[in-house]
């Protein structure tokens, strides 16, 4: 049962790592500039500034400051976002829908395409589909997202005019209410086909950009995983039973090759998260990534800290879930081998 122990240990360490990350984020904020800047809402008088310093213990030694800040985070007070002129927490909640929508669509594209491509190449090892898959994978890993996005824009927006930037056509967007903040969901809930199509139309280009790199990562893992499974004895044994090759591939080789591929989902997700910063800038997508980009340019400490903390926690959580899933799926194989 070493797997169970391993998972328990991971679960116990998880909060510790989050604390550690928060310390790094806190440290970063203290490196750059005036700590009180995080909480400044507008031009404040000296008295207000002093009151803030008192409240967040900014005149105390660092560990106390950290605790005060940490308490703030846990109660939803992460300071004031200069970039969006709202409390950080509010700005986060407002923008999270847009980024999650983009990330999830890109993830769906990446997983479907990646597995398909990896299977296509892995099953025909060292023949041209395999080479194609490998070239695609390496290109995907080397591709600067910002360049790819611009190329797509040049082609599909400037030259062909099929797509445009932004998340929606404002006139259509305003025809429905937005309870969830996820445009496609809102459209579905409102039963408004036109809005749904509008949402999807605007998603295509950014999702394709983001998905490209993640597709490459997944395709590459799927390919090598499939090649490995195909060299196993049970695949030959399945053929010896008279099963047609398609069935052998589908039911035996590919199904087992999917399991290790699950592990790169965490990696791919990290890739997606990082990509959103650039993609949201170029496609003028009103999400967290652009929020961070603006904050970086304007030196908005509060936003930067909040974004780093948020994405790290998200990244950690996804990785933990993936590891649990993998341990569950692999349990049978690990115990048997």
């Amino acid at each position, binding site marked *: 049962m070493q797997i169970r122990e391993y998972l328990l240990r991971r679960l116990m*360490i998880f909060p*510790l*790592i*989050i604390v*550690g*990350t928060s*310390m*790094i*984020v806190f440290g*970063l*904020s203290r*490196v*750059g*500039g005036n700590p009180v800047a995080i909480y400044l809402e507008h031009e404040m008088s000296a008295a207000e500034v002093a009151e803030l310093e008192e409240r967040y213990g900014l005149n105390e030694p660092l560990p106390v400051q950290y605790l005060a800040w940490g308490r703030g985070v846990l109660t939803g007070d992460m300071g004031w976002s200069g970039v969006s002129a709202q409390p950080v927490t509010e700005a986060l909640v407002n923008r999270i829908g847009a980024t999650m929508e983009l990330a999830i669509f890109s993830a769906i594209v990446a997983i479907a395409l990646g597995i398909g491509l990896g299977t296509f190449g892995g099953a025909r090892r060292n023949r041209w589909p395999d080479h194609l898959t*490998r*070239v695609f994978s*390496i*290109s995907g*890993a*080397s*591709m*600067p*997202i*910002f*360049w790819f996005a*611009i*190329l797509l*824009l*040049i082609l599909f*927006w*400037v030259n062909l005019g099929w797509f445009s930037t932004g998340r929606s056509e404002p006139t259509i967007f305003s025809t429905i209410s937005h309870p969830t903040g996820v445009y496609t969901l809102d459209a579905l809930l409102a039963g408004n086909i036109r809005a749904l199509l509008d949402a999807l139309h605007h998603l295509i280009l950014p999702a394709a950009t983001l998905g490209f790199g993640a597709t490459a990562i997944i395709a590459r893992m799927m390919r*090598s995983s499939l*090649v*490995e499974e195909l*060299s196993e004895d049970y695949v030959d044994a399945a053929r010896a039973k008279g099963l047609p090759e398609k069935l052998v591939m589908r039911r035996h080789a590919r199904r087992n090759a999917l399991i290790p591929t699950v592990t790169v989902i965490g990696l791919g997700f*990290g890739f997606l*998260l*990082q990509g959103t*910063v*650039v993609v949201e*800038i*170029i496609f003028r997508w009103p999400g967290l990534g652009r929020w*961070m*980009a603006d*904050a*970086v*340019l304007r*030196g908005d*400490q509060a936003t*930067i*800290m909040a*974004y*780093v903390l948020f*994405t*790290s926690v998200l*990244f*950690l959580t996804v990785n933990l879930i993936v590891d649990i899933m993998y341990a569950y799926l692999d349990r049978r194989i690990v115990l048997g081998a």
Partner: protein
Amino acid sequence: MVDVLAPETTTVQIDGPWVVRLRRLADVSRQVLSNPTTSAGLVIIILLLSLTVLAPVLTEPNVPNPYQMPRDWGARDAPPGTPGHLLGTTSTGGDVFYGVVWGARTSLRLSLIVVGVTVTVGTIVGSLAGFIGGKLDEMLMRAVDVLLAIPELIFALAIAAVLGPSFGNIIFALSVVFWVKYARIIRGQIIHVKQNEYVDAARITGDSKLNIFRKDVLPNSITPVIVQATLDMGGIVLTAATLSFIGLAEAGLAEWGVLVSDGQAGISAGKWWASTFPGLMVFLWALAFNLLGDGMRDVLDPRTEGR
């Protein structure tokens, strides 16, 4: 009926250690280059390096700082093929070709510095963790886990943002983020040596740690470190270009990411060249090092490809 033949006695030539190493290097190189995609990567790298070397020859270096894009207000937004501007000009009259060529230099300096720093730091930390072990090792590994929790680009972004927009800060930020893998390689190798049964136990206990490092850890770590460093040469430039694109480098720097960002505004007006060519360079650079690094990894660390 069958008996064992009498053993022959022959004299055996034993080559010196350096001859063996060189021969192995030749063998490995041949194997690596037998793969056409890997060789393609190497060719591209050579071309890129030629660009860096020939920069002052191919273009007129800008004064006073050749790493700043020249501004020619008389020739703004010129399309490619305009006489004197092979790849066109930017919105401030900077020659795109100039940016491409000097950007290669910038990228080379950047990647060499960062790789040098990260390998060194990683080796030191990994050695400390591996040799001293115990509590220090645990602490360092936890710290590594924490560092890895933050996605690389975002971490570098935050560091550079906090320190202020400058290319030097980008270099620093990348160094802070990218050393971890090397620490793991070195530490892993040390642990492997410690656990290794057929290494001479007497020698290990009697030898100084430095000697163990020199004789056992170093030779075996070289290959994974080289592979990782090659891959990082590509990845670092890619990440740096992204950071510059977002706006963390000085304005007007002859750096590919900055150029793409500057050219962004003109796209809707059909001025595609200012962003396309520098971006292409980033892609080619990353691609070349990835191809080479991958090819090296296939040869030096084959796992499933052997069947």
